């Protein structure tokens, strides 16, 4: 065991860094003016417990690389290393269980006592990773399914009991996207091929035909989309896979132009724009689902279970269909023009039954 007076300087700083010889490690532990800013005491404890095995399993590892891996600055990392080095148990005999150095920007742990392995995975940690892996295994796309299967098995084994709770979470993606559509999308992406799509646009009740060069498969808000460069629109388009009516892999190399900009999935797929029309609907109790289902800008409770829902859309054709579907359970309040169109649509439809 290291005697407490055995070292005269910090583990990585040159001698004379202000620490009095023989004062024990604790005396030098405080570095005024620099505080660990990230998280609570327990957050930092988790990081400290992972840091030792991280270095031990790599034998020697750079300060900069380690700081990046832990998402802290190099100064914070040095604070962490100093704190580990300063751990001192006083009884029965005083000793310092952890010995390390970071001289020359390279970290080495020469003594780690019983801390050389990370703490086992918690239920939340194992569940988050396993659920993510299982979603990836089900998604169409170019990802490596064999690697996914192997990783799931290894992680389940390493997590032990902590893996069990993840079976209580299920994620359903578009069950209606036909298996052959999924397989063809994956095939086209793996081989970098252009696709011919027959695609249903419900808002206009149209089947459209187009060639598209696949970019990515997205899972957002529970739906799977093919993000592709649409050759007819000459723009990036998202195609919901369950609305693909038919699909052919063309023996032509996909060419996604450099100006094609990927959709930012973290800011929401449907961002209303100031150019959009503001539509206001009033719904009765049986039509309240509208407020849940469509991204709405404003929802006002009118009492008696009634709601006023305001939303923005660049194309109001789907709202006309929605209003017909709601019947007496909903009404377009604004714009007045749209309300008139709905009445005309309803009258024309009723005329077919006369």
């Amino acid at each position: 065991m290291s005697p407490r007076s055995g070292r005269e300087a910090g583990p990585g700083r040159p001698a004379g860094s202000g620490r009095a010889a023989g004062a024990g490690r604790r005396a030098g532990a405080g570095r005024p003016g620099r505080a660990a800013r990230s998280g609570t005491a327990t957050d930092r404890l988790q990081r400290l417990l992972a840091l030792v095995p991280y270095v031990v399993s790599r034998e020697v590892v750079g300060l900069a690389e380690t700081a990046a891996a832990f998402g802290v600055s190099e100064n914070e990392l040095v604070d962490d290393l100093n704190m580990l080095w300063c751990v001192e148990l006083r009884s029965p005999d005083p000793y310092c269980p952890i010995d390390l150095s970071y001289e020359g920007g390279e970290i080495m742990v020469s003594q780690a006592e019983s801390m050389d392995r990370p703490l086992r995975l918690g239920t939340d940690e194992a569940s988050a990773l396993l659920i993510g892996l299982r979603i990836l295994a089900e998604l169409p796309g170019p990802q490596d399914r064999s690697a996914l299967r192997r990783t799931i098995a290894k992680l389940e084994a390493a997590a032990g009991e902590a893996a069990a709770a993840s079976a209580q979470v299920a994620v359903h993606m578009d069950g209606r996207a036909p298996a052959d559509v999924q397989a063809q999308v994956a095939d086209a992406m793996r081989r970098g091929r252009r696709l011919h799509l027959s695609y249903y646009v419900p808002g206009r009740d149209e089947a459209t035909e187009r060639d598209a060069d696949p970019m990515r498969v997205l899972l957002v808000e529970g739906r799977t989309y093919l993000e592709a460069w649409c050759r007819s629109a000459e723009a990036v388009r998202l195609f919901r896979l369950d609305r693909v009516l038919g699909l052919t892999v063309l023996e032509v190399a996909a060419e996604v132009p450099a100006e094609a900009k990927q959709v930012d999935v973290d800011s929401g797929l449907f961002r209303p724009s100031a150019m959009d029309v503001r539509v206001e609907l009033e719904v009765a109790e049986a039509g309240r689902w509208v407020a849940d289902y469509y991204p709405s800008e404003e929802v006002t409770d009118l009492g008696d279970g009634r709601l006023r829902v305001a939303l923005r859309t660049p194309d109001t054709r789907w709202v006309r269909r929605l209003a017909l579907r709601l019947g007496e359970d909903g009404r377009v309040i604004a714009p007045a023009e749209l309300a008139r169109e709905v009445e005309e649509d309803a009258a024309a439809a009723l005329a077919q039954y006369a």
Partner: protein
Amino acid sequence: MRLGVAMSKQKTERLLSLVVCLLSARRYLTAGQIRDAVPGYPETFDAFKRMFERDKDELRELGIPLETGTNTGTDEEVGYRISQQAYELPEIRLEPDEAAVLGLAARVWRQAELAGAAAGGLLKLRAAGIDAEETTQPGIEPRLQTGEAAFAPLWQAVRDRRPVAFGYQAAGRAVPQRRNLEPWGVVNRYGRWYVAGFDRDRGEERVFRLSRIDGPVSFTGPPGSVTVPAGTDVHKTVQDTGGAPPSVRTAVLRIRTGAGYGLRRRASSDRPGQDGWDLVEAPFSDAGWYADYIASFGADVVVLEPADLREAVIRRLKGALA
């Protein structure tokens, strides 16, 4: 602020020393032995005990397996230790392609409730020598969202097997009702979260949509007090909410040529007509839902049969006209 930072630093040092002390102990250590070995505890025994109790709770919350016991049958005072075997992540080695998909899996939660847990899990695996970082891969970008406030407490309840109570705003009902549930699982269906379980008031299996939960979710029993029936498949619970499988009937529809694709996709037959209208037959089970859907196609679709479906569509359209 500076005082808070200093306190937090002292606490981290104390907890770290406590973990190292208990991990390297070969025997159970009594509270007194721990106070002697770990720097940073207060002098008076009562103050020490209070702080030590809080520290034990914090370590257990991090998943550190703190064990209590005695070294011999004759010891009167309970001691503490951390078993290295229970503490350590078992050996796991991943090939580079496996580490890469793991990094991608962590990304699924990027904007969601378990993002911190996914990052914490990856950190431990990195600490085990695996080079897994949250990464992107070309061609795929998956995200789960958990915008519902009820997700966190319900996930905890499912994970810890605890019963819950919450206010629920059922569809088409203006006033929220109190519900008591033994949760079995949480399910995401097309982006919306549901909780499935045993409804204690109704005495049967029920499914609740998280976005309709009104106000806080409270735990009504201790961990481990919910038993999920053997053979429960949470994947199925949300799909089977209708009870007995509904009988399927056939609708006969006139659809304008070039329109009604949504209806044609499910058609059992689709015969082109000469007058600009096609004759389509399609199966349906829920007449109310199907009538609403047909009404949305307006003048492009006419129901010929059955009569109740035809009437339901006419009622919908009249409602839209009124």
